């Protein structure tokens, strides 16, 4: 499954919103519940789901879901 599609159920669970439909351009401005605290829950969810770890610097550079999906792919390729 492409990573973007695989991220959708994780986002829906973290933000408790079944109506979330992700595109590469989706950002925190498009999801009501996406604040700095729920962002941490998203990060932990991704780390647990994919068994990867993010560095703080990597996360600060992300502008949208597309960047996030690319970063996850990069980390999975290194495993």
């Amino acid at each position, binding site marked *: 499954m492409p990573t973007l599609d695989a991220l959708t159920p994780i986002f829906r669970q973290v933000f*408790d919103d079944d109506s979330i439909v992700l595109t590469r351009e989706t950002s925190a401005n498009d999801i*009501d519940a996406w604040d*700095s*605290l729920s962002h941490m829950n998203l990060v932990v969810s991704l780390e647990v789901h994919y068994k990867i770890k993010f560095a703080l610097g990597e996360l600060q550079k992300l502008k949208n879901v597309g960047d996030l999906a690319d970063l996850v792919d990069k980390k999975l390729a290194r495993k």
Partner: protein
Amino acid sequence: MLIENGQYNIGDICTSRQCRLGRGDRVAMRWLTPDMERRDYTFNELDGLSGRFANVLASLGVGAGEVFFTYLPKQPEQFVAFLGALKLTAVTGTLFSNFGEEALLDRLVDARACGIITKKSLLRKITRIRPQLPHLRFIILVDSDDHQADGIFSYNRLMAEAGSSFDPPLTPADTPSVLHYTSGSTGKPKGVLHRHGAVTMIHSTAQQVLGLREDDVYWCTADQGWVTGTSYGIIGPWSMGVTQVHFGGGYSAEQWFEILERENVSVWYTAPTALRMLMREEPLLYARFDLGMLRHVCSVGEPLNPAVIHWARRVLGKEVYDTWFQTETGAIMIANRPGILVKPGSMGKPVEGIEAAVISAEGGVLNSGEQGDLCLKPGWPSMFTTYLNQAGAYASKFKNGYYCTGDVAYRDTDGYFWFVGRSDDVINTAGHLISPFEIESALIELPDVAEAGVIGVPDELLYEKVVAFVSLHGEAAMTDELQLKIRLHLANKLSSVATPHEIHRLERIPKNKSGKIMRRYLKATYLGQDAGDISTMEE
């Protein structure tokens, strides 16, 4: 004169009155989308829209004194609905849009809410608890074009069908107005009820403490789910006819400075956590922006550390005035402010008409330098009128002729007050008051969690952070998966602000012989301090 012919109606004063004063074409709200697109609403428009919304609620059968809630992120409909409901003299509650279903349930049940305005992405949380809300007759969706079944209505359709003219009834000062819920260290959140007469105190403190002038452009970053967001993000400035900026996005240093510069903001009201986050940004960022129009900054929510004041003076060339109030006080009570010497780290001095005192456990007024309970002489116009359905809890806040704030403080010889801490276990994280009891209750709903104890510990950025201790059933292990399950459970049931920053496993949660969780012991142990007398601890 703010009050004319005995009309205290907040909705009327913030909109129709401004039009009667000839300010109808003035921009009341400069709305900025998260993408920084601008949409101006004049006082004429705000008056028409809020009048239309009052007619909508009337058409849905909402009567004076019934409780109506907004449950929206910051967006224009939030302000329209709030003011419209007040025009109708419905009691108007605002709910933080990150509340989960349990936080919603507690508040909607207690208030016997008759209606709520929200958006599609939040509807699911209400739908899940709706069977437990027999009094909830309708839900209005701001982003649905059509009415749905089960009393779910389209805001756009209702507004299109309603007239814009609405004459608020003559509203005496004691008429119930705004309802906010506040957390305590025990029990469910309490509904703090205010009255329309509060507008006089909010208005005067907006002038005297925030230093607002009629031609200002003012920006308050607080969410409307909290008292600062309604008292000083709606009522105070609009009662003066001041233009307000409201921004639909979250924290972004670059965007925030762009707003301050581009919109010529002259007074900015924000929170210490936000200022501390700005302090961590690259200094080059500030140099790119011209904040020449900004007269000063005010701060509220948590104690403001002196380092922030010194940073703002040095880097921004601005003074930051710390202000103190509570949901219960409705308006600023103690503050540093223009015209008095700022003592960095202090709460400032009581505002005009407020008598504050530091009281001992025995009820006596303490001398300068002595630490005790911060109390206020009751009777100020914005004082809460009750805790909804909890008259006993309300009465318990008043002792020896004073309202007891629950904060511990001392007064210096110059009459400045200095915050020391809370006298209860309520956690203040980034300006949000969190009840440890609510988090503990939600934690033990999880099948793996046997017991839980929750505390707030000092944090450089947030003032306090939430730390949870849990004991687990049987063979359950504290895995990454369980940590995640706990985090999401709390975020979705309560709110993202209730999510612990740390979760620790203990074999058992320390309790006293009556079974009460010893949070004091947990905190001392966490901080490596002496726990004091633990003779009452369960063996």
